[in-house]
């Protein structure tokens, strides 16, 4: 303390000695606060409207459009451990625990796929994909393990090496695990989205199928 603080030590001790909260009260307080992170539907709609300008440039109209990708889906070379999440057609019920778009507008993008609108939320190590209307979490594209694998193998990112795409990626972004940042892209597939390193062409790290 840089200032002169004369307070009887016993008094100071008792002043600071607030009886601790029970674990259940602490958890309840924090849970209630965390619930504030799930915005209301109207807030989500406002957010996506704010994104309108940016989103307009990012909108994908995949439905009914012949996608002429250079490589077919079967030609993609997945990394070890790649999983593809497939959601039931029609969306199904929105489970309570997976509903509510969580994230900040600055890290979100809106896309359209087969006539349905989705919101991409970019968070550390993953991209969450939500249905915009029901606010259901459709799936998560994870790439942390792939980054860690490259860190471990000293497979350093090539900042100047960028793959060519017949269809412009849905999004370009960068993220890091424990080492250097990697440039990543979200690209459209015939039935959904795939996340890839921008310097390792046509290798899917993770993919999801959209309804």
């Amino acid at each position: 303390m840089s200032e002169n603080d004369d307070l009887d030590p016993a008094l100071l001790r008792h002043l600071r000695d607030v009886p601790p909260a029970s674990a259940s009260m602490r958890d309840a307080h924090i849970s209630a606060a965390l619930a504030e992170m799930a915005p209301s539907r109207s807030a989500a709609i406002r957010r996506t409207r704010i994104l309108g300008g940016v989103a307009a440039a990012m909108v994908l109209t995949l439905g009914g459009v012949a996608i002429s990708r250079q490589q077919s889906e079967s030609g993609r070379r997945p990394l070890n451990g790649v999983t593809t999440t497939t959601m039931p057609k029609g969306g199904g019920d929105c489970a309570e625990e997976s509903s509510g778009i969580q994230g900040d507008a600055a890290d979100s993008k809106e896309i359209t796929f087969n006539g349905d609108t989705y919101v991409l939320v970019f968070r550390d190590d993953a991209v969450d994909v939500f249905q915009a209307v029901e606010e259901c979490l459709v799936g998560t594209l994870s790439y942390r393990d792939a980054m860690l694998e490259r860190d471990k193998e000293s497979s350093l990112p090539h900042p100047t090496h960028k793959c060519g795409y017949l269809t412009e990626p849905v999004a370009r972004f960068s993220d890091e695990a424990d080492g250097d940042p990697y440039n990543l892209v979200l690209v459209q597939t015939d039935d959904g989205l795939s996340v890839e390193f921008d310097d390792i062409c046509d290798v899917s790290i993770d993919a999801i199928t959209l309804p």
Partner: protein
Amino acid sequence: MTHDELLVRRAQRGDQKAVDSLLRQHYDTVRAVCHRIVINSDDADDATQMALIAIVRALPSFDGRSKFSTWVYRIATNAALDEVRRIRRRAIPHSDETFSSLPVNDDSAAVDAQLAVSAALSKVPEEFRVVLVLRHIADLEYDEIAVILDIPVGTVRSRLSRGRTQLSELLGNPDPAAERQTKETGGPP
């Protein structure tokens, strides 16, 4: 970038685990600030809840110009003061009871001592009490308190001095600073 700064950045990007971690990290102090400003335990817990909610809501607007902890305690202070204003509209029976002096070296009387401190704090004017709490519980520097309360540093210093004197007198303990000043000026012991 420090671990805490990274945690805040992740929280601002909507990482729920990061927010949870930040709230748990600051929970005890936020609660202590609320309890010492609000006094009444149930109301203080309400204030704590409101403070945590306000922190989460305001997180995206945190610009890093102050320390994150200072920003958190500012929100906690405002939540506590809001609760005090709400309570003030309720009828509170006034008690003229005298406060027991703090026991010395008697841990078994800790609960009584806590009650005595709470009762005495409730008698200290709010503007002094808040400064006392921010200084001695949140461990904030004078300039940080000045920013939080939007008052000059000199006012922080004077309120702190007067608050300490009043608190000590209410508890029947001599205020060390006042006592030393008296001795230095040759006044009565």
